[in-house]
């Protein structure tokens, strides 16, 4: 009798062991898939394009962007990304990477900034901006976020960004915080980072620009935030709008000390 029970138990163990081993959670499977993609991140293609565009003479003034001041002095690219958005004295505005690049394209190259800001993402000169942002972000890969809060405008933008993050509105009574205000939430199979605090290295603000495999598009933070608003059924705040920059300041300051992995790869 005893022997048969032990036997049955052993048999049970033999049956369940491989089943347990084979059963991965959805999150584990997605992580495996991401790891497989990591090696061939097509963001590399945009990076190369961006570097090329930075050094090319373009626009009505046929000038390069090599004198563009991203906050660390004219032409300094390395380390600029992890300190943006910040206040710029020449434009008297808090600017993120993409809106700053647009200012440079206007002042140095003579492009019409308002027209480019109105261009839909992934079209015309918006493609240029995304490629440039990808390369500039890549130059700060592995560095830690360190946003300035020294200027009063920068502190105002943080507070405004925080308010916007929690502001519920729209037909679905939604806020950014609805999805990104708690730990360990997910939408379908996507993990949602809690962005009301520091989400850690390479998560949230520290992961964009990113290449999205599902639609084969390279997205900057501006497109990411504008699309978040679309998903909340809000109107687009617009490219380089104060609202998106304020949110970026809020997310960026929260990510203080986290390592940037951008350009990342997303599902």
């Amino acid at each position, binding site marked *: 009798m005893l022997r048969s029970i032990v036997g049955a138990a052993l048999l049970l163990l033999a049956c369940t062991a491989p089943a347990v081993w084979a059963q991965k959670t959805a999150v584990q499977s997605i992580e495996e898939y991401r790891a497989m993609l990591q*090696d*061939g991140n*097509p963001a*590399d*293609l945009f990076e*190369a*394009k961006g570097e090329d565009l930075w050094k090319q003479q373009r626009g009505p003034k046929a000038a390069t962007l090599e004198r563009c001041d991203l906050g660390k002095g004219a032409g300094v690219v390395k380390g600029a990304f992890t300190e943006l958005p910040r206040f710029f004295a020449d434009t008297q505005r808090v600017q993120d990477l993409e809106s700053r690049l647009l200012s440079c394209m206007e002042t140095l190259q003579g492009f019409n900034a308002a027209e480019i800001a109105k261009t839909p993402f992934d079209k015309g000169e918006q493609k240029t901006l995304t490629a440039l942002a990808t390369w500039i972000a890549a130059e700060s890969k592995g560095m830690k976020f360190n946003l300035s809060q020294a200027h009063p405008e920068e502190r105002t933008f943080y507070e405004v960004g925080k308010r916007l993050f929690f502001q519920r509105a729209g037909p679905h009574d939604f806020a950014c915080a609805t999805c990104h205000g708690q730990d360990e939430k997910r939408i379908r199979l996507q993990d949602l980072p809690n962005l009301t605090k520091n989400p850690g290295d390479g998560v949230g603000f520290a992961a964009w620009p990113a*290449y999205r*495999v599902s639609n*084969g598009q390279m997205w900057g933070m501006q497109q990411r935030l504008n699309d978040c608003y679309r998903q909340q059924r809000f109107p687009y705040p617009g490219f380089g709008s104060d609202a998106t920059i304020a949110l970026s300041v809020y997310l960026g300051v929260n990510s203080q000390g986290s390592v940037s992995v951008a350009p990342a790869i997303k599902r």
Partner: protein
Amino acid sequence: MADPMRIRAQVSGDKATVRVLMSHEMESGQRKDAAGNTVPAWFIQEVTASLNGKVVLSADWGPAVSKNPFLQFTVKGAKAGDKLAVTWKDTKGETRTDEATVS
């Protein structure tokens, strides 16, 4: 003209691992645009790789390959300093060749 490829070729032992990223739309011909018209097929059809001018890989691709495709393969007998060239040709007859040095 099409954007350049990114080619990395790294020796480990008597083999080299080659990683290629190609910049291409890879339209399958199955999609419709906003107006309901079929987006015509446009994809890479032929891929060849050669080591110092000798073909080491040739492939026929179809519409099921993703946009901005990634290709990885290993070449036996590749040494540091060898030239590895990759060429693709798409359905419009457009072609692009890029070369990298094995390291």
